[in-house]
């Protein structure tokens, strides 16, 4: 049996090292992993499915699938956080599809800014995540509406590019082009320093 880091030490492990302990079925490591990413995961699920109970289910299923190693982290393909949130996103979209999906409201003006949610107990981690999210929304807010709309429908709505083309009555090529321009513009904001390390403890 592998020797086990003491609990305080777990919190200082980098995400990648934590994940190898989670793969080894260490519940304490899983707890630290959840504490780091559970909030962002739940927030994303809530954004996509729009219902607290369903968001809770989606988050639970995503984390259990990670625990049960049905999803494996591959360090070659990006950060642990991006990987985990990708799993949450896909689960949430599946959940949306299996519930009968209401027709998307295209006239909404809240693409990047949701009406404020009841604030739960504020933690330091949450405060930092909130700040990053606010800065990101600001950066995303400068995208032309036609670009933010297609990105929103694709990523948070789970619609395919051809579905979006039908919905908006625009040629598929136009939709692809808007997606690409939008992502390129977001990519440019990365250079302006959105912090990578907004997960306390993860990069000490």
């Amino acid at each position, binding site marked *: 049996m592998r020797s086990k880091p003491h609990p305080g030490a777990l919190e200082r492990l980098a995400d990648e090292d934590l994940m190898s302990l989670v793969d080894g079925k260490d519940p304490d490591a899983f707890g630290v992993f959840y504490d780091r990413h559970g909030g962002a995961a739940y927030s994303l699920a809530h954004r996509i499915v729009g219902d607290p109970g369903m968001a809770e289910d989606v988050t639970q299923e995503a984390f259990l699938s990670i625990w049960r190693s049905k999803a494996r982290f591959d360090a070659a393909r990006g950060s642990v956080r991006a990987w985990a949130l990708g799993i949450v996103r896909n689960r949430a979209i599946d959940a949306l599809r299996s519930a009968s999906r209401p027709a998307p409201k295209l006239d909404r003006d809240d693409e990047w800014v949701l009406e404020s949610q009841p604030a739960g107990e504020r933690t330091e981690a949450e405060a930092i995540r909130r700040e990053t999210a606010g800065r990101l929304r600001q950066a995303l807010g400068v995208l032309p509406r036609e670009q933010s709309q297609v990105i929103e429908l694709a990523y948070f709505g789970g619609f395919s*590019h051809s579905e979006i083309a039908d919905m908006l009555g625009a040629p598929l090529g136009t939709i692809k082009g808007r997606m690409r321009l939008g992502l390129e513009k*977001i990519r440019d904001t990365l250079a302006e320093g*959105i912090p990578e390390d907004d997960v306390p403890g993860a990069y000490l």
Partner: protein
Amino acid sequence: MSDHVGEPTGHERYRGDLAAYALGAMEEREAAELQRHLADCEACRMELRWLEPAVDLLPRSVEQLEPPAGLRKRLMATVRAEARDASGAGIETAEPRRWRDWGTLLWRPATAVAAAALLIVGAAGGYLLHEPGESSLVITARPSSVAPSNLAGTLEREDGSAILTMSRLPALPPNDVYEVWVKRDGTLEPSSLFVPRHDRTAEAAVPGPLDDADAVLVTREPRGGSQHPTSPPLLRAALR
């Protein structure tokens, strides 16, 4: 980045799809086709790697909420229970237990006689050895086939008694309650009654002693509770 020589045929077409692919916005078949191209095309792989961090920022831009505390509690209870099962301390693996356990009979689609069958067939239960050295532990309660599959519960044993924590309980008709049962020597003894909160979670105390009990079950009953179950169990935590 375009006009490179030596890129596979159709390269420009695939290149135009990379943003949609990164956003998860392609049909499965289209995505599979693009993946085959990516395997052959270094230029597209590089470009995809360049685009991906933009997509990774999207989930971080949403309004940040605090997840319900019960979520962590349930996850950890499940994870600890599974880690314990996997560590081989158990007498048997989960799979054989499922089939040897008579209680599984009820896990088939419900019939009117299901509850009665429980009482009769139940007499065969209780032969498994008690697992030693586990006086305080958390057991995963599993939904039956008549329950919604996302119904979740844990039974936390403490000092001979237990607390049953549940989420995603089906809403009750106005005159019904949930009833907890303790199965012992093949019979079901009524325990506590409860109704879920608005968020469909609930905790129920299960007074002990539970040392010689085989399982804890939950059924839906008329208000006031029943002396014998009148509906098939929705949730079951095996104690042995």
